[in-house]
């Protein structure tokens, strides 16, 4: 009998190739007759293009072709589509300006693609791109979302630079509750713009086969099927069956590799023009200019409370900066994935949220780890902590007074939480963080001249966005199911095909644990395949911490079909009634007898059907399933951060960070812990070090890793983490998702801790040493 694999710390199957340099990332793919592309990008944030002169570039050494927006327009290459239609407060559709792959007559952000050079080598392509002469008429730029409305118009369809004004909740009821409240806490927040910075830069390598009249695109993507669908159906007008998209090993995504990008479209189109494979690999400077950014909200938030600290209502007004164009899922992030999370873990009965989404002369903004939920958590948890201080209540006590305690729970902002136990994660976090000893530690810090503070965040998130019909009614233009296939081979080994994509999450191990455990096979007998549209039946990919809850459930459904068919075959082999067959860890048994057939024997009979019910049953043992969830899953937890601030320098050190999460059932604790660590580091990065800045002319001031500071090893602590399990009620694995939690809960916990240390309520992210020092000086003055 095999030891249970669910809940086991199995070392990862994928590690050997990564540790020996055998991983295959997109830039590692070199095709015969490979050519290389380089993009000429706009140096201006907003300008008319008077003329593009390409003759010199065309005659440069090694150059095969130079294309501009005019070439794509002549070839009827369409603009990039947006995957979610938001309807505004007046019932009108959001403004959807064209998003051409190469600029058409105008550029709208620094880094926008103006032309592409394809050459024999990457160096030749780059050299030649510098020879392109573009005559620009520079226009005034606007980069600050709150000033977009009066700024120079980016798009004809949106003269006031407004994409939509959208609202959720009963405004009149909320206003009435505020007018009667004993106390109102009011804060203005900036949720700082972030640059995702997966360490593997984006890359795309497309080839066209005349023999097949088809394309193959290798691309660093989190969802190859979605990439193919958007590119073929909406941009290139190609039959989907003629395009294969492969997302091989992908070096991190964090949202930034969900989207269809112009570079992917251009290299695919060019590969047929030239009948050569065309590869483009971003460098980091290009990544800063062209990978979708995250966050960038300015919010005015208010919480109404009664005299006992009970929450009566919340009112939130947010300006969301979408950048220059609508990236693939940009429109749903500050709406559907933001306002719906404003209840948090609390029974706040009335919530109203109004979002104004605007265009600016900046890189497009879309989902970045957490996507809307970190912004919502920041609003809720900063408000709650500040309210506790104002009412002189313990910040833990005010949370307990308002916790949701019975489930299912219908929030006033559309979501229905199926299950949870917020007290369990809170009390565990208080224990692990030794909150009781805080005062003593604070005094010790003070002796060293340091200010010590403690901050909390009790977050909720919604993962595995679903179901498709509800999302569709809210504007989604895609389904939100997942697909899986189980292929049992004649010898009893198994290949699993999943539409989820792993770019660091370890699916090859976690999914294999699920399958091996369910079938009672050794984990070595199970292979997970992902990331190739020619192998996998369909997939919606990996984002929103959905892979196990949605993709894993599709696999479980397919496994159930395998076992059901296996029982029919076993019944025939053992001359028993199908109803009497039981499946138990790798063996089909006739109940109440000692008759049994191993899984491998049944598989062999399915493929060598000499003794087989051919009149009733098809040969073979291969099943697939699609799964569309009935609800989101709702991971939740409590984070406790302790900081020490140096009064003289403003430097903040994270003295300790405790995270207790409820992800439902945990399949591989080692992998789950790793996901939490990474999320926490990104959340701490947002709070302390990361902030994307433009100057007023639209130049990116933080355009390299020397200027934009992602956390280094010495910036983050060793984390103290644990989990509590309340299984999800609506998927068979009881899982909820763990990929984004750290980035969602950490920023509020860190800023609550620093503001506690400083004795202030306002503090902008990132709380760099300079920001903290200035705050201290202002307070002292």
């Amino acid at each position: 009998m095999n030891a249970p694999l669910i809940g086991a710390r199995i070392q990862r199957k994928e590690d050997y190739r990564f540790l020996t340099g055998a991983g295959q990332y997109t830039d590692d793919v070199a095709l015969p007759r490979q050519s290389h592309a380089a993009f000429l990008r706009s140096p201006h944030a907003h300008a008319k293009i008077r003329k593009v002169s390409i003759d010199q570039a065309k005659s440069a050494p090694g150059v095969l072709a130079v294309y501009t927006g005019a070439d794509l327009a002549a070839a009827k290459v369409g603009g990039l589509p947006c995957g979610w239609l938001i309807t505004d407060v007046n019932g009108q559709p959001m403004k959807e300006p064209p998003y051409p792959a190469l600029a058409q007559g105008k550029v709208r952000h620094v880094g926008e693609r103006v032309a592409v050079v394809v050459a024999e080598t990457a160096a030749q392509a780059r050299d030649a791109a510098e020879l392109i002469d573009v005559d620009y008429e520079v226009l005034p730029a606007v980069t600050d979302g709150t000033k977009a409305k009066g700024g120079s118009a980016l798009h004809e369809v949106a003269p006031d630079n407004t994409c939509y004004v959208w609202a959720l909740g009963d405004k009149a009821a909320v206003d009435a509750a505020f007018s009667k409240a004993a106390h109102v806490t009011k804060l203005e927040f900036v949720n700082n713009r972030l640059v995702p910075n997966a360490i593997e830069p984006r890359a795309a390598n497309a080839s066209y086969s005349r023999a097949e009249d088809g394309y193959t695109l290798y691309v660093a993507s989190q969802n190859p099927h979605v990439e193919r669908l958007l590119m073929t159906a909406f941009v290139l007008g190609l039959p989907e069956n003629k395009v294969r998209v492969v997302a091989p090993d992908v070096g991190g995504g964090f949202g930034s590799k969900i989207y269809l990008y112009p570079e992917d479209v251009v290299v695919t189109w060019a590969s047929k023009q030239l009948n050569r494979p065309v590869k483009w690999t971003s460098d980091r400077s290009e990544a800063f200019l062209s990978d979708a950014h995250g966050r960038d909200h300015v919010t005015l938030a208010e919480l109404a409370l009664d005299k006992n600290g009970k929450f009566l209502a919340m009112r939130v007004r947010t300006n969301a900066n979408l950048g220059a164009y609508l990236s693939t899922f940009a429109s749903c992030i500050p709406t559907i994935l933001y306002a719906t999370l404003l209840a948090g873990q609390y029974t706040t009965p009335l919530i109203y949220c109004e979002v104004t989404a605007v265009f600016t002369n900046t890189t497009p903004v879309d989902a970045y780890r957490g996507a809307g939920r970190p912004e919502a958590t920041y609003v809720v948890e900063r408000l709650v902590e500040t309210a506790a201080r104002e009412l002189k209540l313990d910040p833990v006590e005010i949370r307990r007074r308002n916790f949701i305690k019975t489930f299912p729970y219908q929030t006033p902002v559309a979501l229905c939480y199926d299950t949870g136990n917020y007290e369990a994660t809170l009390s565990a976090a208080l224990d692990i963080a030794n909150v009781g000893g805080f005062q003593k530690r604070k005094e010790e810090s003070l002796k060293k001249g340091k200010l010590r503070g403690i901050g909390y965040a009790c977050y909720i998130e919604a993962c595995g966005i679903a179901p498709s019909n509800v999302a569709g009614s809210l504007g989604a233009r895609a389904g939100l199911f997942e697909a899986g296939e189980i292929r049992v081979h004649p010898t009893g080994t198994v290949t699993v095909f999943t539409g989820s994509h792993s770019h660091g999450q370890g699916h090859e191990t976690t999914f294999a644990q699920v399958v091996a455990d369910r079938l009672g096979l050794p984990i070595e007998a199970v292979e997970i395949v992902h990331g190739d549209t020619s192998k996998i039946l369909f997939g919606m990919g990996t984002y929103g911490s959905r892979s196990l809850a949605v993709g894993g459930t599709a696999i479980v459904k397919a496994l159930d079909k395998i076992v059901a068919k296996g029982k029919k075959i076993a019944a025939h082999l053992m001359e028993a009634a199908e109803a009497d067959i039981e499946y138990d860890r790798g063996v089909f048994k006739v109940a109440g007898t000692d008759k049994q057939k191993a899984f491998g024997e049944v598989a062999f009979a399915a493929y060598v059907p000499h003794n087989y019910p051919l009149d009733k049953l098809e040969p073979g043992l291969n099943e697939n399933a699609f799964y569309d969830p009935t609800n989101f899953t709702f991971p939740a937890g409590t984070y406790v951060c302790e900081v020490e601030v140096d009064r003289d320098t403003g430097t903040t050190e994270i003295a300790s960070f405790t995270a207790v999460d409820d992800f439902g059932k945990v399949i591989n604790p080692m992998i789950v812990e790793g996901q939490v660590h990474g999320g926490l580091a990104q959340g701490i990065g947002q709070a302390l070090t990361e902030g994307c800045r433009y100057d007023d002319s639209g130049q990116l001031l933080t355009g390299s890793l020397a200027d934009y500071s992602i956390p280094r090893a010495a910036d983050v602590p060793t984390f103290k983490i644990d989990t509590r399990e309340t299984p999800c009620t609506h998927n068979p694995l009881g899982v909820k998702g763990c990929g984004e939690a750290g980035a969602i809960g950490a920023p509020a916990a860190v800023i609550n801790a620093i503001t506690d240390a400083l004795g202030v309520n306002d503090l902008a992210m990132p709380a760099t040493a300079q920001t903290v020092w200035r705050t201290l000086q202002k307070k002292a003055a």
Partner: protein
Amino acid sequence: MSVKVSMKVNGKPAAAEVEARTLLVTFIRENLRLTGTHVGCDTAQCGACTVLMNGRAIKSCSIVAMQAEGADIMTIEGVAKPDGTLHPMQQAFKENHGLQCGFCTPGMVMNALDFAKSHPNCTEKEVRESLEGNLCRCTGYHNIVKSIMAGARAMGGKI
């Protein structure tokens, strides 16, 4: 201008005619097709391109191939034993879940090899400081630090 460069890479002679401006990392990845050494930035910040040159960890994006003329280079492909057995540092990364997407991993391992040979009993603080030049976006460094401490002890001061 093209130049001939020759060096030893993972114990084997390697030579090619390259443009003078060719970076060592480009020579390793494109000419030798050793694609385990990665490029994650263009400002020498991320360390994904770290290799050993004459036993010392260097960023192969920061020198041209010519500067490595006659040098002894080790890349991630040369770290495991010829029979495929992982080096103790690689094994420590595997056992401690010190990698997720794997992209920064080769640079992390190469840097750790150089560090560990002189720090067999390293502290957490020393390890975190040693990672000043290597960025990871997946792991939050927690398990990389654990891996390097375990790997250093297993190495006992020897690569």
